[in-house]
């Protein structure tokens, strides 16, 4: 399998007065063409920031360093014009909140056609026809919604389908889904996700899925990346992770009672005692030390590096969990 996306030493820095802090610190991973990667971690770990860094829409004041190579080209080194050409076209994104992610004043057909016109340079008629076909494909045929329908006439699930149509319009090679559809009820969520997975597989797109849902992770993603406080603490094939977690944080995240295959869709991450340290309160040592039951004095001076813990399994912990 050829590599599509290669992230290397990606750091995101913010400034407050004379102080600096890192929202992401030297994060690295790779994703093959058509591959699936799940990113998990508690709220505030930097998952959304990672997604925004990949698509190049970081908020003002957040500076990225490192490399984000797509097909060998480092996106971070590109000027904004060239970067923009990749948005929607090579990398697309679907967002969590279906109620707010669509422009309430514009008909859905136009919102789907807009990307086609901007990125593929299609004329109005052709873009409209393609938008119509896309809406059909995502399960919004003529009887259900017309291109002239306004978002407020649609249900949450239907809006989510429009968002899928928008993201898939230019057939990107990589789709990023940030907690996609988690605002929906279980049944609708399952339907929309099934559709997304089907379309991604059909078009051989790579999928980077940010989720809080371990069941979903098991179902959809071949590999998993665990983020904690802006750092990658564990990376492994999903099956291996469900079989044995090495980082105490991942173990806490999965919960002791959880075993591979026994996770129903919709299982939420159990909570761990304490909280993720905010960016400006992160010390030099292991970022999880303050909440870790296995902490030893050598955890404190510096951040443990990622090291191999099995086939394609890497963990950043000096005293990893050993399962019998």
């Amino acid at each position, binding site marked *: 399998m050829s590599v599509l996306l290669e992230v290397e030493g990606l750091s995101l820095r913010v400034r407050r007065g004379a102080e600096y802090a890192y929202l992401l610190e030297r994060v690295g991973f790779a994703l093959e063409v058509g591959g699936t990667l799940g990113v998990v971690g508690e709220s505030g770990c930097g998952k959304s920031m990672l997604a925004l860094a990949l*698509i190049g*829409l970081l908020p003002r004041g957040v500076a990225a360093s490192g490399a984000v190579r797509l097909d060998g080209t480092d996106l971070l080194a590109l000027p904004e014009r060239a970067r*923009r*050409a*990749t*948005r*929607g*076209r090579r990398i*697309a*994104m679907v*967002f969590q*909140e279906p109620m*707010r*992610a*669509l*422009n*309430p*004043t*514009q008909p859905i057909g136009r*919102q789907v056609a*807009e*990307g086609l016109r*901007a*990125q593929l340079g299609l004329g109005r008629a052709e873009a409209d026809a393609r938008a119509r076909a896309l809406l059909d494909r995502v399960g919004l045929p003529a009887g259900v919604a017309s291109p002239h329908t*306004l978002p*407020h*006439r*649609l*249900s949450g699930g239907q809006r989510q389908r429009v*968002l899928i149509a*928008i*993201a898939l*319009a*230019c057939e990107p090679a990589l789709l990023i889904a940030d907690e996609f559809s988690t605002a929906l009820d279980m049944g609708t969520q399952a339907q929309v996700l099934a559709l997304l997975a089907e379309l991604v597989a059909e078009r051989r797109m790579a999928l980077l899925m940010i989720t809080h849902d371990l069941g979903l992770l098991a179902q959809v993603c071949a590999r998993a990346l665990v983020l904690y406080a802006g750092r990658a603490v564990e990376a492994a094939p999903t099956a291996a992770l469900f079989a044995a977690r090495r980082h105490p944080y991942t173990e806490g995240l999965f919960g002791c009672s959880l075993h591979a295959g026994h996770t129903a869709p919709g299982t939420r991450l159990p909570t761990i005692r304490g909280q993720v340290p905010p960016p400006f309160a992160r010390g030099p040592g292991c970022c999880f030390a303050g909440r870790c039951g296995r902490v030893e004095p050598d955890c404190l001076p510096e951040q443990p590096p990622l090291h191999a813990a099995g086939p394609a399994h890497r963990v950043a912990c000096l005293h990893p969990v050993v399962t019998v």
Partner: protein
Amino acid sequence: MIRAVGARLGGMALTLLLGSVIVFLLLNALPGDPALVMLGLDATPDAVVRLHHQLGLDLPLPLRYLRWAGGLLTLHLGTSLTYAVPVSQLLADRLRITLPLAGITLLLSVAIGLPVGVAAAARQGRVSDTAIMVAAQLFKAIPDFWGGVLLILLFALVLHWLPSGGFPGWEPSPLAALRALVLPALALALPQAAILARFMRSATLGALSEDFVRTARAKGLGTQAALWRHAVPNALVPVITLVGIQFPLLLTGTIIVETVFDLPGLGRLVLEAIDQRDLPVVQDIVLLLVGLVVLVNVAVDLAALRLDPRLGGERRA
């Protein structure tokens, strides 16, 4: 849309009816006898009674209201007590100044305020944004007449670009008439534009932080395209409503500005008529102003509805 227009026109009729009752009651309860003003303080009681009868002031209030309202409906506006000409003719003359003045002011305030607000929002936090907002704060704080005097000083007395006041009439040269309206319209429009700019800035900033703008950027739209196609149309909805709310202020502003610039418009007429207790004129003008305000607000409502169809009230459960 047709239903929405119908509903608003119905509401407009109702507002006008209520407005006419209130205007009538207020003005007819006002102290000051028009007959005494017309005849002078040393008038004989006999003459006063005769004039009362002639003016219909001896009739009971409800009957007087009905005569007035009926006249309005059939476009018989009565006769001015002081000028002894039909009120309709008086209004038509004065409206030829005040309507263009209000129209130009409205256009100027929107044409200046909205782009400036969007520009400031697009430069949020930068020096140019701060400069724009400080200037807006300043213009907002300047009272209409004061701004007008400053404008006269600058453009008329220093630069000699525009006339300092007076109105040459439309007939000899429409251009000269227009030139006479530029300074008063600017004097009125600048504070309005400042208010609109500040509001448009915050509305645009709000819209820019919405998720759908991020969706637009993720499609590959540039910052400008995302701003103008997605943020601005959404930001316009509340701002347009504000234009409607501000319109009565603009009309009262014309009264002052017409005095400062010596324009024989509606504002001047209403001041004179109040001074003279010229009831028929005052009543009709006030109701006309109410009508204008209602009309502008209906237009504003419909424009907002076009921009944001969700306001139509038909929502999906």
